[in-house]
């Protein structure tokens, strides 16, 4: 099985999940669990940093869809940053940039959250 890891750090009321490796049907539950933990803690400003993500399958994409309504109903958002060219292509083909905000860097994404406060 390919390796997948999630690292979390918080910047004030913003939580950043840095996901690395292969996000597929086998590893999607790990990512989903981390997102659910944030929702249980009522942290609804979430950044997913894809800097170390090498591969994402449809099961991985489904994790994003599974939580977004809950997040936005609570006046939060999930924004995505640092997608590599190959990974972004998967998101782009499915039209995710019409549904989520993508930014080139984590710092810029944090600024977008803070500017909206």
């Amino acid at each position, binding site marked *: 099985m390919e390796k997948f890891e999630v690292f979390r750090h918080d910047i004030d009321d913003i939580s950043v999940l840095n996901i690395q490796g292969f996000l597929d049907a086998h590893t999607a539950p790990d990512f989903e669990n981390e997102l659910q933990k944030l929702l249980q803690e009522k942290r609804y400003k979430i950044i997913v940093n894809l800097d170390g993500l090498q591969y994402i*399958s*449809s099961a991985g*994409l*489904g*994790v994003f*869809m*599974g939580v*977004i*309504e809950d997040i936005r109903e609570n006046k939060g958002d999930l924004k995505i940053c640092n997608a590599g060219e190959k990974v972004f292509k998967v998101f782009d*083909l*499915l*039209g*995710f940039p*019409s*549904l989520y905000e993508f930014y080139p860097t984590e710092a810029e994404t944090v600024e977008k959250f803070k500017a909206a406060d």
Partner: protein
Amino acid sequence: MAEFKGVVQTLAHSYTTPAQLAYAANRVVYSHTERKAFISAVVAKLDPANRFLTFARAGHPPIMYCSGDDRSPQNLMSAGIGIGLDSGDTFNRILEEKTVRLIPGASVVLYTDGVTEARNAKGEEFSEERLGGTPASTFARMRGEIRRGNQGTAYPIHYRFLWRNATS
């Protein structure tokens, strides 16, 4: 897949354009599946008498268009998002319908990402780059590699690969 095929076959009796059919399919899928489920599809209508192909791409890989001469295949793209990702407002606003006229001898190839993302025993993807050439050569290459399944170099995939040749 089988359920979606049933949805499309049912709706196809009621809608005349690919975009209208896709709008309706999105409404059905969005309201009857869990939020993390979605489907990518190309809905296309071929008018063989006049050689027109009208299509709408809902988050699916592009259609490969081969003109029949020596030029490399072109990707036919149009704006669109996956079916079931949105209740309809964004889906309907973004989905774009396009029509191309096929010249005699041209072919169109529809394929799923099961083709391009298939991995062999070494972990190598089949990849978009290997879809080049004529549809016949691509298909032969894929079939050949699948046949070598017991030698560790095959791409053990579930895929849909459809090509249609326009006659003069």
